[in-house]
């Protein structure tokens, strides 16, 4: 991530010079800084709403019930999290919001899930090595990757835009969206599992070398 954040501005400046659009690049810096604050304010209300609702749902036991339903699938993807624990519950909530296509609700729930994973793993997870703080764990990456691949069943935004542009049947892209989503989701899970395995092996080899 930090490499990408370093490369983008440099690429933008070079391209700006080539295309002669450096003035636009320069004004983009200031405009977007303001836009980020506007976005954060919009997000803030939604974030507070869902964090509050989730707390009520949690206290009422609704979260536990739902995560019971999803946990067989979820526990295949996440290693070593306590069954029925808070992290598992939050992951299930986040994934349900994704599937329902709740858009902005998924971010607050995802963040709650990340925090719960961190809380559980940083202290007392037997069997899984607790990563040094500041470094992502396999479970955190799995959750993030699932969130970057689209789990949404009804692509409401895409359909609404199609309707706005006069598509005859806006929802007729549904089968295509499902198939493409399934492919990219499968690729995401496989890539995360494979890269996780490689990185664990490498880490093991490195610590093994230190012992000798």
């Amino acid at each position, binding site marked *: 991530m930090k490499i990408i954040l370093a490369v983008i501005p440099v690429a933008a400046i070079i391209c700006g010079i080539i295309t002669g659009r450096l003035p636009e690049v320069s004004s983009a810096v200031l405009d977007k800084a303001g836009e980020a604050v506007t976005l954060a304010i919009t997000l803030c209300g939604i974030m507070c709403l869902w964090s509050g609702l989730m707390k009520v749902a949690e206290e009422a036991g609704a979260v536990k019930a739902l995560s019971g339903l999803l946990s067989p699938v979820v526990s295949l993807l996440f290693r070593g999290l306590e069954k029925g624990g808070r992290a598992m519950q939050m992951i299930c909530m986040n994934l349900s919001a994704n599937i329902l296509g709740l858009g902005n609700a998924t971010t607050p729930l995802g963040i709650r899930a990340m925090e719960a994973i961190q809380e559980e793993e940083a202290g007392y997870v037997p069997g899984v090595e607790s990563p040094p703080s500041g470094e992502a764990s396999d479970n*955190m*990456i799995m959750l993030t*990757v699932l969130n970057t691949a689209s789990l949404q069943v009804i692509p409401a935004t895409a359909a609404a835009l199609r309707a706005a542009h006069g598509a005859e049947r806006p929802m007729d892209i549904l089968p295509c969206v499902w198939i493409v989503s399934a492919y*990219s989701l499968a690729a*995401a899970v496989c890539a995360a599992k494979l890269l996780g395995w490689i990185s664990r092996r490498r880490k093991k080899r490195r610590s093994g070398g230190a012992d000798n």
Partner: protein
Amino acid sequence: MQITDFIVPVLFAGILIFGFAKRVEVFPVFCDGSAEGLKTTAEILPALILLLISVGMLQASGAVELLTQLLTPLCSAVGFPPECMQMVLLRPFSGSGAIAVYDGIAAEYGADSFAGRVAAVLLGSSETTFYTIAVYFSAVKIRKTRYAVPAALTADCTAWIVCGLVVAAIMGN
């Protein structure tokens, strides 16, 4: 009206009523959770600023158009309409940017054209990868994201590769 219009209000009311039924102190508990949301927003704002500035610079510089031209030959290999290349490049960074690109494609080629359909399918089957990674990891103060970016990009690349083929196979050119 669509089913999706019901989900949010029904969930909102449903959760609160369920809380009442289970004798949860709904008001203080909600406020408690809400306050956490406020804190989280403040924590992710710095990452948001950095990301939006980077993306804005890239968009303004014309880098997306340059990359599109470079990648056009690759598109024909997987039957992907080069008109939609901008969508592929912007989607991982910016949701509103991707919508703007879709608007452009649909206005120029029509919503029911091959390019229009491919763009809509891409919009519906992928997410703003970098935004998600930046926000999620900055909320838990993680700096080293390890293999999160390559794994997430594998998904985006897969969507790009299969999208043209799937749309052509199911809906025709």
